[in-house]
């Protein structure tokens, strides 16, 4: 049970760039970060998901925590102790890999005993721990079997068991553990994992690119993209208040509507139609645009208005503060349907209940509730509640 702190941790797989004369700032002269230096604190006993597309640095970050990888910058602290230079075997961290690793010349019980034997734990205690863990993971009937030719979910349970069996284990890191598991056993294993977390309360860090997994398992989700943490929040926060356009479209199915717009007279103008937005957001957005344009000579900051398809409201024709869109396509998804509509030259998606009549070619009058509508300046959300 431990608190894990990452202080300015960053990692680059490329060797540090050669210090050639005047190299700074030139193209290729900068470090190519797999993970940009970042600050993160994982609370003791928390369940975290590390969510992001393939290649965004999730696994690198995980390997830095477990000690398989020494970060090129920053410090890793476990319960306040600096372990940056410590190898994995002394860190009391368990890690489960995407492809389950099983020692297949041993029995299931010997597999579970392996981490303890390597640490010289007395035999009687090993037996007791194996019995405990096996009953939690429902491996008891198979303990005497040889650990080869087993199903993928059983293999993954055994490798999870090798992590749980260590009493001193501070944190369990899981690197996309369910990708190789059949869909119908996936949810069982996910529930098992949740039970394990609730009963033993280890700090759990779960890497995944599957948003459903992340949102169901974790209390806190860390969203990563291109080596950077773009947002840390509860599943609800990520859904309702994405801090970055990336979070907006990566989370949710379909993702957030992000329409290019301009600002004018307290409203956003989307292809000639006015969308009223909250006053506080408008003020901040204007300021952010000014700051961005002053700061960078690059030109105008990109402005987008974001709203979830689930939170867009269909209103009566000509309704106040509504915009008109034309339905292009309707997808039936069982209990609800997703209408894809053209708003000027842009596309907006709306979730409608199955009772609502809608067909391609229909005109839709939509209201974007100011409460759920955010402006993104150069990809970043304008904070509605205080400091930038």
């Amino acid at each position, binding site marked *: 049970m431990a608190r894990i702190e990452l202080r300015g941790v960053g990692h680059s797989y490329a060797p540090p760039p050669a210090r050639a004369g005047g190299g700074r700032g030139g193209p290729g002269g900068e470090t190519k970060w797999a993970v940009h230096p970042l600050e993160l604190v994982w609370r003791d006993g928390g369940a975290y998901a590390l969510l992001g597309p393939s290649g965004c640095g999730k696994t690198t970050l995980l*390997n830095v925590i477990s000690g398989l990888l020494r970060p090129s910058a920053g410090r890793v602290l476990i319960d306040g102790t600096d372990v940056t230079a410590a190898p994995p075997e002394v860190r009391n*961290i*368990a890690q489960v890999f*995407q492809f389950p*690793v099983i020692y297949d*010349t041993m029995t299931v019980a010997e597999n579970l005993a392996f*981490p303890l034997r390597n640490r010289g734990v007395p035999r009687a205690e090993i037996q007791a721990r194996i019995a405990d863990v096996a009953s939690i993971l429902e491996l008891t009937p198979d303990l005497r079997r*040889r650990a080869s030719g087993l199903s993928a979910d059983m293999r993954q349970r055994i*490798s999870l068991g090798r992590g749980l069996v260590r009493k001193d284990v501070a944190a369990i890191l899981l690197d996309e553990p369910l990708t190789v598991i059949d869909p119908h056993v996936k949810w069982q294993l996910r529930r098992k994992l949740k039970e394990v977390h609730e009963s033993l309360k280890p700090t759990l860090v779960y890497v995944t690119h599957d948003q459903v997994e992340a949102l169901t398992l974790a209390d806190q989700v860390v969203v990563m993209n291109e080596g950077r943490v773009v947002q840390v929040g509860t599943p609800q926060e990520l859904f309702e208040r994405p801090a970055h356009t990336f979070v907006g479209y990566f989370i949710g199915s379909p993702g957030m509507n992000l329409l290019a717009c301009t600002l004018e007279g307290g409203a956003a103008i989307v292809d000639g139609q006015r969308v009223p937005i909250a006053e506080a957001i408008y003020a901040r957005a204007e300021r952010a645009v000014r700051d961005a344009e002053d700061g960078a000579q690059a030109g105008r900051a990109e402005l987008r208005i974001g709203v979830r398809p689930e939170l867009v409201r269909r209103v009566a024709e000509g309704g106040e503060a509504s915009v008109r869109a034309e339905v292009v396509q309707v997808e039936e998804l069982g209990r609800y349907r997703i209408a894809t509509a053209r708003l000027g030259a842009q596309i907006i998606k709306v979730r409608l209940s199955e009772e609502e009549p809608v067909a391609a070619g229909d005109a839709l009058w939509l209201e974007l509730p100011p409460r759920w509508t955010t402006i993104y300046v150069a990809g970043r959300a304008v904070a509605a509640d205080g400091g930038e």
Partner: protein
Amino acid sequence: MEKPFNNRAWLLVVPVLVVVAFSAVIPLMTVVNYSVQDILGPDQHVFVGTEWFRKVLRDPELHGALKRQIVYSLAVLAIELPLGVGIALALPMRGRAASASLVVLALPLLVPWNVVGTIWQIFGRGDIGLLGVAVNRMGVHYNYTADAADAWLTVLAMDVWHWTPLVALLAYAGLRAIPEAFYQAARIDGASSWATFRFIQLPRLRGVLTIAVLLRFMDSFMIYTEPFVLTGGGPGNATTFLSQYLTRLAVGQFDLGPAAAFSLVYFLVVLLFSYVFYTAMTSAAGREAR
């Protein structure tokens, strides 16, 4: 649904049957034919049944050669396998050093058999050979042309020098095929390097090691050229192995009948040993797969 039967399918197998017939069956049958005849002249031969078989099986010289052969092959396996695996483990896994060391390692494999014999013949000489002179200077009396044990050890050393690289290359390929996650898991589990070897590397090398055992066994069991060049089978009979004895019988004394009978026995012995090794190593894997 019933499987369709069509006798024309046999036509598809005919090319293979013809090739195998000419490459294996017909030559083998010729040998079988010789083994049951006494050839007296170009057109004179008498059917003698199993007489030659009984003769060669009772031949004390052959017993000696067989015993030497078995001890030799087992010694080759006992040295080359652990040594080859050890070398493979010590080799760098990536980078320029990896390719360079592989090339250097493979050099002995490129040397023709009889040249290997010649190299060691000179290398081991007490008057001008590097090895011979060095060993004698250290105060150990070493002369492979006169001392049976020295001759024997030299032939063994020569084989180890020549063929350990093959085992090492096979083991190296096997090691390279182990996914990184296994090593990572082992580190997380706190495994010592011995435990990593015993429970991850060795089990995953079983496939290539089976091949290595079979190749090295069959090859060493049929060794001919190197001792022929180095010692000519001597001193006395110390390095006369089965194939040398056979050649002496067939070519030297022109005893075609006994030589043919002996060839068949030799063939069956190699087959039997290979079968035993193969079954032992794969059934160990099978037991674990259950």
